[in-house]
Structures are given as structure tokens and as C-alpha cells.
């Protein structure tokens, strides 16, 4: 393992220190427990939108803290969901009478830890709700299992709920909006290489030179199946078909297409894949109305990509377009 770190046990704390120095105008960092908070928090009369999860997926979530998106992010250890006291600290730093929405990716650890934090916050008299995003179609959905994972769709959910909070929506409204987004967003990913978790010191899975992991998660969990490597045209079609058929997205739909790099895949390849995805959607009569292309939900240095589709309507489009000013997403004024 070669990484630019001092020691696996201090990676997250030291990385957050750098984040705070790089973006002091947008955010501040508290350590122990680790929390990334909007520089201007608490924002008066605004619902606080809080997200979090294990580290190693940067810029998710700390890179999305700022006006128009998250009020706080709660980074756990690498690939390990944060503890309830960290979530509580984020609530304490951001949440006023308007309450808070916790965005939780559907992993057992995240759900349990955020759930506990929400209960504790409720006991403190705060109105804290949580929504669980589970957009990964690679995993069979079932109430008898851990269910689908939360992956790329999380960024879109954070942006849209953050914009709603910014315009002054109530917690009821932001929560309802979140559930709407969760209902209309689907993703799937593929890995070409494995990430290496710092404290593990070796790749999470071994992949032959001619193989890829289809239906990969973002924690180095092996994917749904191992398939032979194939040209980009075929691979992107495979990804897109899985997503489109799931909801399903239909002819005439207008969507946001999010082509995401898992970290190690260069932009050169990612844009190539994005171009293919746009063509394949056009062929299906689905209109790409907005797009996001880049490494936004990563899995350390893993090479690979994911495709996320969000069905848009006027309201979602407007909220997507609303100004945002964070380390990783920035537009509008």
C-alpha cells in the first residue's frame, strides 16, 4: 500500500484539517467527534440539512457543505459510519427551531447510528427527521435483507434538499421532497480496480486483468457479479439498462444524468462514458435535461464509474439549478 498519509489512524482527522484550511470561507471543522459545519451555521429559520457516513468517498459529504447544500457533514472513519455523538454534535451546531433533516445512506451501520442520534436529539426536544436513501439497483430490494445501498443519488438528494432548505421550506416540506427524490433516483456502478483501505493495507478485492466488478458498492464490497472487461459502449449500456429498467424510466421522461467517477477513473474516460450514456438515453427517448459529470461519490482510489438517473419535474429542476457554493459544487451566485 502506498498512500500520502502519516498513519492510518489519523487519516481522517488530518484530512479534515486540510479541508478546513482549504475552504475556511465555506466551512469549519470540529474534531472529536469529527464534524464539518457550514461557516455561517446555524442559519436562522432554516431547516438544517445534515448528511454523513464513512470517509473515503470525498468530496461526499464534506465537499458539499455550504450555502445551498449541506449545513453539516459527519465523517466517520474510513468506510465506517460515524457514531451517534458525532451526529449529535452536527445537530447541535446547526439545528434551530426549524429542525433538521438527516440524510442517511442505507447501510446497517449508518441507519443504526443516525437512528440513535435522531432519538437522542428528539429527547432533547429538537425536531430531527431522517430519510434513508437506497438508490443502488445492484442490490435486490427486500425487507428481509439489508436492502439497497445509498450511492450516487445521495449527491442529488443533498443538493435538492439543501436548496429547498435555503429557500425557506419547512421541515415537513423538505422531508417530503427528500422522499420524492428518493423515489425517483436510481444508480448502479462498476469497478475496474479495488480500493485499498488504509488500515487494511491491501486491496479490498482481487480482480483479474480482464475482469470488472459489476454492481459494485462504494466501500470495496465486491459487486453483484464479476464479468469480463468490455468496451465502453457495452459497459455503459449494461449500466444504463440496469438503471432505466429498474424504476423504470420511460420514453418521454426528462432526467438528470449523473456520470460519476469512483475516484481512480480519469476524466478523459468519464466524459467518454458520459457521451455514450447521453446517446443511449436519446435512443430510448429519454431527455437529458441536466447533467453532472465528475468524481463526486468515490471509493478511495478505486477505478470505476457509476450512472445515476433522477427523473425531473419543474420543481426538482429549479432546485437543482438554484445557487450552490460548496467546495465541490458551485454555481449561481
Amino acid at each position, binding site marked *: 500500500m502506498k498512500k500520502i498519509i502519516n498513519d*492510518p*489512524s489519523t487519516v481522517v482527522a488530518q484530512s479534515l484539517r486540510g479541508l478546513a484550511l482549504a475552504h475556511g470561507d465555506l466551512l469549519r471543522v470540529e474534531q472529536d*467527534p469529527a464534524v464539518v459545519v457550514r461557516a455561517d451555521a446555524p442559519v436562522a429559520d432554516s431547516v438544517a440539512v445534515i448528511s454523513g457516513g*464513512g470517509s473515503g468517498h470525498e468530496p461526499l459529504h464534506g465537499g458539499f457543505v455550504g450555502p445551498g447544500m449541506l449545513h453539516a457533514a459527519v465523517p*466517520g*472513519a*474510513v*468506510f*465506517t*459510519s*460515524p*457514531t*451517534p*455523538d458525532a451526529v449529535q454534535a452536527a445537530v447541535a451546531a446547526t439545528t434551530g427551531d426549524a429542525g433538521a433533516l438527516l440524510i442517511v445512506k442505507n*447501510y*446497517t*451501520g449508518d441507519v*443504526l*447510528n443516525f437512528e*440513535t442520534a435522531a432519538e437522542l436529539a428528539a429527547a432533547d426536544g429538537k425536531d430531527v427527521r431522517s430519510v434513508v436513501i437506497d438508490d443502488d439497483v*445492484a*442490490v*435486490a430490494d427486500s425487507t*428481509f*435483507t*439489508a436492502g439497497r*445501498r445509498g450511492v450516487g443519488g445521495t449527491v442529488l438528494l443533498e443538493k435538492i434538499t439543501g436548496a429547498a432548505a435555503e429557500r425557506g421550506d419547512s421541515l415537513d416540506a423538505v422531508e417530503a421532497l427528500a422522499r420524492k427524490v428518493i423515489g425517483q433516483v436510481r444508480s448502479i456502478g462498476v469497478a475496474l480496480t479495488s480500493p485499498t*483501505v488504509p*488500515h*487494511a493495507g*491491501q486491496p*479490498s*478485492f482481487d480482480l483479474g486483468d480482464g475482469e470488472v466488478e459489476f454492481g459494485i*458498492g462504494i*466501500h*470495496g*464490497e*465486491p459487486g*453483484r*457479479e464479476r464479468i469480463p472487461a468490455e468496451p465502453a459502449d457495452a459497459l455503459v449500456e449494461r449500466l444504463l439498462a440496469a438503471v432505466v429498467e429498474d424504476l423504470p424510466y420511460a420514453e418521454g421522461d426528462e432526467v438528470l444524468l449523473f456520470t460519476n467517477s469512483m475516484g481512480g477513473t480519469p476524466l478523459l474516460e468519464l466524459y467518454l462514458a458520459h457521451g455514450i450514456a447521453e446517446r443511449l438515453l436519446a435512443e430510448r427517448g429519454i431527455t437529458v435535461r441536466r447533467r453532472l459529470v465528475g468524481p463526486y461519490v468515490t471509493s478511495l482510489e478505486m477505478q470505476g464509474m457509476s450512472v445515476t438517473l433522477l427523473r425531473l419535474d419543474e420543481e426538482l429542476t429549479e432546485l437543482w439549478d438554484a445557487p450552490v457554493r460548496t467546495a465541490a459544487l458551485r454555481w449561481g451566485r
Partner: protein
Amino acid sequence: MTCGATEVAAALRAAAEAVTEHRDELVELDRVIGDADHGENLERGFAAIVSALDTTGIAATPGAVLKLAATTLISKVGGAAGPLYGTAFLRAATALGDHAELDAAGTAEALRAALDGVRARGKAETGDATMVDALAPAVTAAEDLARQASGTAGVRQVLLAAADAADAGADSTAPLVPRKGRASYLGERAVGHVDPGARSTALLLRALAGRA
């Protein structure tokens, strides 16, 4: 034959040592079918328990010691194992109440409470390939021994019986298709691998037994 708070604290220190000793093994089990952090998570948590014992001193009752362990695990571990083990220790602590001494029957009751807590939080049943597959048979074995050998078996024997059953229970997860936790994402591909949480449950019970 019975244990006080001091012995429980010593047992937790022994558990911390065992976790450190088996850290890499647990990381490796989790690497194959999960996200390679289980050993790291538990080591962080049990190291924090040892510091907490060092700084706050040993509480008056076994229950209070276990409660300190529980809150430490909840606030330091994260992931799935943090809340689940945290709940287990918390329920066990509650079951013990403020008794100054822990006996065989009390141990079995505490284990039962722990299992109920894990089940309530994680919604896993036996056969889902989780720590429940180690803890459930451990509880049964502990209860059997505590009941059968009433008065003759001590806390250590009960925990040893629990550990033996947990070992077998952990092994039994290998052929299963996991239905809970991260390994469930792999479906059939996880078959043949022991669940890391089941394995850690077994080794924690054995370590606790060693000092009880």
C-alpha cells in the same frame, strides 16, 4: 465462582487484548465479504474501553462497568458493530441491575438480554449470517449450563460454554447466504466465508471467560 466489578473490568481488558490480537484476522474476514474494517472498528472501541476504565476507575457494580463499556462502544466504534455491540452490552448491563456480584444464572440472563437487544436493533434472525448466529447458540448453551448445573457452575464455566457454542455458531455461517449486513450485498458470492461479527462474538466470549 461469582464476579464483582473488578473481575468484570479485568475481563473487558482481556477482551481488548484479544481484539488486538485478532484485529488482522477480523479485518481480513471483513475484507473478503465486507469493507475491511471490523477488526479496526473493534480495536478502536475496546482500546477506548480500556482508556475509560483507566480514567474513570472501576465502577461499583458489574452492571455499571458494562454500561461504561456500552456507551464507549456506541460513541467510538461506528459502523454496524458499534451500535449492535453497544446495545448488547447496554442490555446486559440493564439486566444485571445494581447487583454487586454476578453469578452463573445472572451471566446467562445478561447474555439473553444482549441477544434480545441485538435482535431488536439489527432485525437479524439465526441463519442470516451475522453475529446472531454466534450469540444465539451461546445464550442457549449458557442457559442450559446455568440451569442444569445450578449452584455448581460458575461464571467462567457458563462463559466457556457460551464461547464453545459461539465458535460453532460462527463456523456455521460459512455455508450461508447472508441476509443482513454488508455481506448480504454479495448474495451467493459470500458463501464459504465466516461472518466477521460472528467470529468476533465468539472470541469476545472466550476472552471474557478467561478472566471471569
